[in-house]
């Protein structure tokens, strides 16, 4: 059983990214409407928007949190070719704005000549480092030498990936046996350029990032890439969202000699590959114990993947915004229809987002929409929080 709760995001265009902070109590969303919103979970479990501000002069593609050790810090990246670092200001706020927090821009990183498509903070043990990748195929690694001064960032590395980059992910492993590693996904639509995922590794001797591995089997544009939380593993697990969901396992091979300077060699295994979305997969996300992978695609569904004890990955649940588990197990909660969709939107002031409720489709296995939708000019997004309970896929997990 899982329950879905929708939040009226009130963004004026599509939401492109949702990001939880380190402790899972804050959430940031970013949208094409050039704004970022910060949501805080109240004691009652409700998410409340505590800040909303215009961040860029173009679509904001991604938003990400820094480790709380560095303060309440966000980074965003945008179509307007910049990335920005934001810090929450604590202190005396006037009573009128109680419950609202104030974020100020600490820096703007303007090195890219094209749209900045992803921004990520490096793992905490590396210090305060920020990575961006852009549509012209350059990955840039910045460092704040003084963690107390968030307005000074120096460009440490520039990695040229040739093709347009869409996403990056740091290897979260804190082991000293694993040198800093970053995976880059590329979204060039030309299938003949194979190897849409590249792994770069820091070389202590040359003090540069060098290509360690190219996943040649990934030939379609990659939309999202995420390393699983490491949790003391000796190998790395990488989830990729392309035209399907893929899970790769990278096992570092022992070096022949201790002082060989080349990049680590990896044994690359495909652990799983699923095309159940039947469409482009846009996002993949690991849970904290890296036992559960969630993916979302153009079919409007979120699918959950889990490995059984044989290391076979299986779909353990399909989530839709309507809360009806598609695999049929579990029972839908009692519903009350408010009205037909069209009418509900007319209900001015009833609820802020014009929420409406319709009964679940009779055949939940069918694609949520088979008929082409009328073209929407202004697209809006909704946020759903799914609470996932084991019972919903007890039947399907091995």
């Amino acid at each position: 059983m899982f329950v879905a709760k929708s939040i009226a995001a009130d963004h004026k265009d599509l939401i492109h990214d949702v990001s939880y902070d380190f402790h899972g109590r804050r959430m940031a969303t970013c949208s094409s409407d050039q704004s970022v919103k910060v949501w805080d979970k109240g004691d009652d479990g409700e998410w409340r928007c505590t800040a909303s501000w215009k961040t860029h002069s173009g679509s904001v593609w991604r938003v990400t949190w820094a480790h709380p050790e560095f303060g309440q810090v966000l980074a965003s990246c945008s179509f307007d070719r910049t990335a920005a670092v934001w810090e929450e200001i604590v202190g005396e706020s006037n009573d009128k704005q109680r419950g609202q927090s104030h974020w100020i821009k600490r820096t703007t990183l303007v090195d890219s000549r094209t749209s900045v498509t992803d921004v990520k903070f490096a793992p905490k043990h590396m210090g305060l480092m920020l990575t961006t990748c852009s549509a012209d195929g350059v990955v840039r690694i910045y460092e704040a030498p003084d963690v107390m001064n968030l307005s000074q960032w120096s460009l440490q590395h520039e990695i040229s990936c040739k093709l347009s980059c869409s996403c990056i992910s740091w290897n979260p492993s804190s082991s000293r046996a694993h040198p800093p590693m970053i995976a880059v996904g590329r979204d060039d639509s030309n299938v003949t350029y194979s190897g849409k995922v590249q792994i770069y590794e820091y070389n202590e001797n040359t003090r540069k990032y060098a290509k360690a591995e190219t996943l040649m089997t990934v030939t379609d544009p990659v939309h999202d890439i995420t390393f699983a939380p490491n949790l003391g593993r000796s190998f790395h697990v990488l989830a990729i969202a392309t035209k399907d969901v893929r899970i790769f396992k990278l096992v570092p091979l022992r070096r022949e000699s201790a002082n060989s300077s080349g990049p680590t060699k990896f044994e690359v295994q495909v652990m799983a590959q699923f095309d159940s979305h039947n469409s482009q997969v846009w996002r993949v996300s690991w849970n904290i114990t890296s036992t559960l992978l969630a993916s979302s695609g153009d079919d409007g569904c979120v699918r959950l993947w889990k490995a059984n004890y044989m290391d076979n990955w299986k779909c353990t649940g399909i989530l839709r915004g309507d809360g009806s588990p598609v695999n049929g197990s579990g029972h839908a909660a009692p519903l009350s229809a408010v009205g037909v969709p069209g009418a509900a939107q007319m209900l001015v002031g009833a609820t802020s987002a014009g929420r409406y409720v319709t009964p679940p489709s009779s055949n939940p296995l069918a694609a949520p929409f088979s008929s082409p939708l009328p073209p929407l000019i202004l697209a809006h997004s909704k946020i759903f929080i799914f609470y996932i309970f084991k019972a919903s896929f007890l039947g399907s997990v091995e």
Partner: protein
Amino acid sequence: MEKMSRVSTIGGRTVFCHLDAPANAISVCRDATQVVVAGRNIFKIYGLEEDGFVERLNLRVGRKPSLNFSCADVMWHQMEENLLATAATNGAVVTWNLARPCRNKQEQLFTEHKRTVNKVCFHPTEVNMLLSGSQDGFMKCFDLRKKESVSTFSGQSESVRDVQFSIKDYFTFAASFENGNVQLWDIRRPDRYERMFTAHTGPVFCCDWHPEDRGWLATGGRDKMVKVWDMSTNCVKEIYCVQTIASVARVKWRPERRYHLATCSMMVDHNIYVWDVRRPFIPFATFEEHKDVTTGIVWRHQHDPYYLLSGSKDSTLYQHMFKDASRPIDRANPEGLCFGLFGDLAFAAKESLMSGELVIELQKTNNHKQPDFLKDESQFQESTTWTMLRIMFSEPANPSLSSNHNLNKSGNLPLVNSFSMKEMSTALNERNKENRQDNLHSLETNLNNNDENEETEGSEGQAEYLFGDAELDDDDLYSMEHDNQAAEEPEYLLPQEAFPLRHEIMDHPSAPEPVQEKPESPHVSGSEAESTCLTSMESFSLISVSQLLFSPHLPPKFFCPIVKKMLCYYAKQGDVQMAVSVLIVLGKRIRKEIDELTQEHWYMSYIDLLQRFELWNVSNEVIKLSTCGAIMCLNQASTTLHINCSNCKRPMSNKGWICDRCHQCASVCAVCHHVVKGLFVWCQGCSHGGHLEHVMEWLKQSKHCPAGCGHLCEYT
């Protein structure tokens, strides 16, 4: 019909040609077969052929062309196909007649403006009327049949950046200014503008009348915005606003598409964007061919929306086809997905994707009936692991164990297979009586709390770890609510790959039973403490194991490779908690078997996990108890306490209790005047403090400092 036939003659693809010099402006003739390119050093006419541009005519003639050829703007007359007008940077307005027989096609020269002319504009329907706007702040209307201007309009503002005749209203034209204003003029009334409004902050670089909608004017400015104004009513209304990423140099409505317009920028951004003004945040289409600033854009034909011509500072002239444009919206990620720590998954998606949305409030009733068989194999595995570990290492005959005071004695190894925390704590308490190892007790309590997913509600002092319990194990990601009643556990077969096992073990993690029964333990070790923890069923299952596996002369080292293998297995499964717990409990016995780097990695991962769940106390406990050097020093690095002496209120510089300035003991309780050993709380304002309980008591009575210094103390 005529319109359609004309449009259909246009063919071609995305083509470009190199110019000799950067272009400043381009314009097409009415039948869309030729384009004129004008710039500081270029003035040429190109023919548009099926397979590209063909140079037709170079208008820049003469050995040393005069400044009149240096064009800021050019316009091809839309009715008279031989007539062109240019705005020269020296302030001249020049008309050109292509029908002239000689090489120099220049027809008329108006040198009335004093500074650069920014814009020229022919009247859309009146053949002989030409309008110009200049940097000197004046607009002039010329009759091409006369030698000089017929009327001059003074904006009383700053420089004129753009002038445009209205397409629908015969007498009206719009002018945009560097101070952000837009003025509407009636061509018959040169004394005063009809209307004026401030459109942008900063210069308004361009404006364009909508070809269909009367009174719609699009303006673009240095403030990076494109605004659409409706002037059909009495008050000017901003109806759309598009925010672009750079200052807007040109704006052109797209033919046949009511809400589309094309823009280009004069700085930084080299792309051409086509916007749907109803969706002001993402460009509808983008042309990314130019390598330098795009200076001129024009739709090839006034009724054809698929071809766009552009000239650029990079000395190229492009014909863009709409089907080759990149569509940012198609590449934009329409979804956001993120896993939270508490098993919640945030998902943002396009509303159209979520057909038939439902909003279900969190329903606790539905998930309250957590199945009792939730504790599936992995948990069972863990419990069995602990049992095995105990058997392996709890041999009393081993002198190395019993002699080591700090390590766990046999009874102290956590018995995880007793599945009720109540029983656990009782057992612990009992053991405690026997060997008062408070330290170890707390360790075990912590460990047990984290290791198992028990009903902690029953035990005292455990509640604070409930969160950790609920979250740390992946199975519990799904269980928000714990069941209070541990029911009968079904039988399980231990999965084969748990760790090297030689037998199948049937275990029955049973319901809590009164521990007082103290069933006889037939275990070889026969320790009393141990047996109290075992229910009859368990001990039964243990007998078989212990008797087969265990003979007294086997040293614990014998098992180390197995344990190591097991720990690696858990780490591989991502259950770093188990690995770290075993490391801590076994301490020295296993430490040497696993290399330092791996241990450190496990510890770090586990501590990171604990900190994510804000289990600071537990993580601190782990750091304290760790046997790994790099971890132990974690707490010693970057932790500094700055203390003031409570007597002289100056910073304490040396270590120890005595202040080196006033030579008195710095940490004296202000209430009882004794030296505080252990927990010392103090006010950061006045440096006075004392025993925690004394200060708490004092603060109930008074807000002032107990030392009598008059400070209103604040303890946070």
